[in-house]
């Protein structure tokens, strides 16, 4: 029985390793990869490897499922584009939808749930109105939650489309307003790259930094292996096509106040996925890197999250990062009373 997700990381990093797995190990690996939403990426990575015939259909299913996710994500993005046409604003796709829309390696086999877009903050209410007109509705009609989102978050409260049952998150920046770092949303919008469809994606360095901010400054690292795989794939592709990528990345990290986060993520992705990274930006290894690795690999062969204490610590940390202590206390008190 596998005790952590190391085998998934190994298989993504060095697909040939799967040749040594027996049936029980494969069953563990598949459960882990599904739980981490990396089964599609794994299936693509294993193309061309002689996997056992019992496993082939599982991998084929995963590829087909993510093919459909890709089509649906692009369709959903186009629905949003059509809803916002009259506003003529820059609509920037984010995360998974951006990766597939820009046809990046990070989008290959990726599972995609909600549609995430970013618009300028002063366009937010106009965007909101047009989306409501086009059939999206509020998911959380709770007044406290609604006000909380509007006052302190980097996005509108989530909207769901009443016919297609798909969620959209409309961002105006990349991190909660209460978080420590304040990425420069204006600069991200300014540099965004226009696609043929008329939609935008972030410029390479910003796209990578958003992925990093999402993982290391905004969450409890649940599902972090997938996010870190995005980071690995983005880095490999961007660094290969642009000699100035690392310089640009360093400058943008400074601008967005994400230098320590960038450094941490470069060290972790190099450690786990063997990503070739710029050593200057990655900085010296820290003892706490091991804690992060411990947290990221917390998944056993049954597909369960384990290492409860570590996970809890990172969960508390994630709230700590998002808001100052007094505000956190008030927030948790309100949520507790309502529960």
């Amino acid at each position: 029985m596998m005790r952590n997700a190391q085998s998934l990381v190994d298989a993504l990093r060095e697909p040939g390793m799967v040749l040594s797995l027996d049936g029980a190990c494969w069953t563990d690996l598949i459960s882990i990869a599904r739980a981490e939403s990396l089964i599609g990426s794994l299936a693509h990575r294993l193309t061309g490897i002689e996997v056992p015939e019992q496993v082939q259909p599982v991998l084929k299913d995963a590829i087909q499922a993510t093919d459909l996710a890709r089509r649906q994500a692009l369709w959903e993005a186009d629905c949003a584009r059509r809803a916002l046409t009259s506003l003529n604003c820059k609509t920037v796709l984010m995360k998974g939808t951006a990766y597939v829309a820009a046809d990046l390696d990070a989008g290959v086999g990726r599972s995609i749930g909600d549609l995430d877009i970013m618009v300028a903050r002063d366009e937010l209410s106009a965007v909101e109105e047009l989306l409501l007109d086009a059939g999206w509705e509020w998911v959380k009609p709770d007044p406290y939650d609604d006000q909380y989102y509007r006052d302190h978050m980097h996005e509108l409260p989530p909207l769901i489309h009443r016919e297609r049952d798909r969620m959209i998150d409309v961002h105006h920046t990349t991190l909660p307003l209460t978080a420590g770092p304040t990425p420069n949303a204006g600069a991200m919008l300014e540099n965004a790259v226009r696609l043929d469809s008329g939609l935008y994606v972030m410029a390479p360095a910003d796209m990578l930094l958003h992925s990093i901010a999402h993982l290391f400054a905004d969450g409890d690292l649940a599902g972090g292996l997938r996010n870190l795989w995005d980071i690995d794939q983005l880095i490999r592709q961007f660094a290969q096509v642009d000699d100035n990528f690392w310089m640009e990345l360093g400058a943008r990290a400074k601008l967005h106040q994400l230098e320590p986060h960038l450094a941490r993520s470069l060290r972790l992705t190099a450690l786990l996925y063997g990503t070739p990274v710029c050593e200057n930006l990655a900085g010296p290894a820290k003892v706490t890197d091991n804690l992060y690795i411990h947290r990221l690999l917390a998944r056993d062969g049954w597909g369960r999250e384990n290492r409860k204490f570590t996970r809890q610590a990172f969960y508390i940390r994630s709230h700590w990062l998002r808001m100052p202590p007094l505000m956190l206390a008030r927030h948790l008190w309100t949520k507790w009373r309502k529960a």
Partner: protein
Amino acid sequence: MAGLHHLYLTVGPARFRVASTWQRPLDQLAALYGDYPASQDSYADFTVRLEPEKPWRRYIRPSVHISGDFWLPDAAPLPLNQSLLAAEMGMNLQMALGWRRHLLLHASSVEKDGKALLMTGLSGSGKSTLSAMLAEKGWRFMGDEFALLNPDTGMMHSFPRLISLKNEAIAAMQAILPESRFGPLMTGTPKGDIRHIIPPADAVQKMADTARPALLLFPRFGYDPILRHMGKSEIFVRLTQASTNYVALGETGFRTLTKFVDTVPTKAMDYQSGEQAEELIDSLWNKLS
């Protein structure tokens, strides 16, 4: 973290690893699935997990939370004496959310002379009971939960899990089957009383045999016996609702289902007793080419 007991099950084309905090549901599964092919190699398409909702619920008022490779966020836990049902629901859940090799129809199916009869309808329509009954009268039982339609060949594949009898159907089958074919009686489940029966031996021995879909029925229990014509568009829409993975299969699902609707004769069937249903089915079946 507590270790899990586990066993492997093969049902038709699908292989499951069922993992559980408690040995009890696994012992029950092992007894009821005793004649199914045993796993030689520990591969599985899906893992099902049965665990306490909270760690202390392992011992105090034990409650079984169903999860696995595929899961629903709001699945209600079941008491430990219904853990067999939890295991069966867990396997259904994996198929419904994760299986892509066939178009899944929520239907029972039986086979004769290489041709399959499918019965679909809402819960309480009697599709499960009818399939169990026909299975004792010369038909081969193919499944009472999911009918698996192959997108490439249009053939039906068998998924002969335990047959799940509910409420009045339990007594009806107890009248004709020996006690050894029955699993434990579970009372007060979300669907009332439930008792599983082991499918006939040939259903398990021939579970790899496919059949050409030859007749589709929408049975409805409790009305004067009659066969009614159904329009193709109605059949199509009702089957999209009866399929758990029609949307997930995208264009393949559409192609497979439209071909099925175009080629398979279909009737709505009202009936008040097993004998009536059997008569109506025979009258239709004998007219098939």
